[in-house]
C-alpha cells in the first residue's frame, strides 16, 4: 500500500470512528427542557425513570424522555405534577395505561395478548438449536 493510500485509509477510519462516537452519544440525548426539571432531585430522578419507560404516542419509537413532540412534553409535565401531588410510580403507570393502553409502555407487560411476543423468540431459538444439533449428529 502506498503512503497516500495509507493516509486516506487512516482518514476514513478516523471519520468512521467520530461518526460512531457521535451516534453513540446522540442515542442518550433527552428532550427534557430546563423549565420542566423539578427542584427536588429525588422527584426528578423518579420522573426521568418513568418517562424513559413511556412511549411517545406520536413518534412511537421513542420514549417521552427523548421525544420533542408536544404530547411527550405534556406527559412529562403531567408525570412531574403527579409526583409532586404524591402519586406513587404504580399509580402514574395505571393513570397512563388507563388512557393509552399497554402500548404506551415501552416494555410490554406479560399477559395473554403479549405472551407470543415474550416467548416466540425463545421457542424459535430452541427449535433452531435442536435442528442444528440434529443435523450435526446426522452428518457425523
Amino acid at each position, binding site marked *: 500500500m502506498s503512503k497516500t493510500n495509507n493516509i486516506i485509509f487512516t482518514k476514513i477510519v478516523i471519520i468512521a470512528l467520530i461518526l460512531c462516537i457521535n451516534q453513540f452519544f446522540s442515542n442518550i440525548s433527552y428532550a427534557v427542557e430546563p423549565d420542566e426539571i423539578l427542584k427536588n432531585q429525588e422527584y426528578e430522578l423518579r420522573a426521568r425513570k418513568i418517562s424513559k419507560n413511556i412511549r411517545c404516542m406520536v413518534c412511537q419509537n421513542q420514549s417521552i424522555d427523548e421525544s420533542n413532540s408536544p404530547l411527550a412534553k405534556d406527559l412529562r409535565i403531567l408525570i412531574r405534577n403527579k409526583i409532586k401531588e404524591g402519586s406513587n410510580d404504580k399509580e402514574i403507570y395505571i393513570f397512563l395505561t388507563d388512557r393509552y*393502553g399497554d402500548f404506551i409502555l415501552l416494555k410490554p407487560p406479560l399477559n395473554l395478548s403479549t405472551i407470543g411476543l415474550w416467548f416466540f423468540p425463545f421457542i424459535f431459538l430452541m427449535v433452531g438449536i*435442536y435442528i442444528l444439533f440434529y443435523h450435526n449428529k446426522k452428518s457425523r
Partner: protein
Amino acid sequence: MMKKKILILPPIFFFLILSILFYLLIIERNPSEVPSNLLNKNVPIFEAQSLFKNEKFISSQEIKNEIILVNFFATWCKPCRDEHVYIKRFSNEKGIKVIGINYKDNSKKTTKWLKKLGNPYSDVLIDKNGKIAIDWGVYGIPETFIVNSSGIIKYRHVGPITDKIYKKINLLINENE
C-alpha cells in the same frame, strides 16, 4: 419415523406464522393507529369551559341519553379543516349532536374559523393545555369518538374523516341507535 415427524413440525409452524404476518400486511389497516383503550368504557369525567356558552360543561350531565360525536379539533390543524364538511353533514343532515373539543387553540381564532366555515357543534369546549385530550387518550388531532346513549365510547377514529369513514361512522351510529 417419529423423528421425521418432529422435524416437519418447525417448518409448518414457521410457515403458519409467516402466513399470519402476510395476512396482516395485505388486510386494510393502519399499523400506526393505536386502538383506543377507552372502547366500551364510560366517557371520562371532566369539566370544561364552553367557548360560546357562559357556563361550565360537566361531562356527566351533558353526555347521556343520545348518541353523541365528540370531535377534537383545532384551527391550526389542516386535516381538521378538511373533515369539517363531514362534521357539518353529521350535524345538519343527520341531526346528530356533535361536541367539539378545541385543542390547544386561540379562542378568538376558533370563533372566527367557525364563523367562516360554519359551526356544526352543539357545544365547543376549550382544552387550553391538552388535559382533556389526555383523559380521552388522544394522541393526534383530529380524532372523533362515537358515544352511545349510555355514555359508553363505541368507536374512535384517528385522523380526518373521509368519505369512507363518514359512511362507516353512519353505519355504526345506526347500529348503536
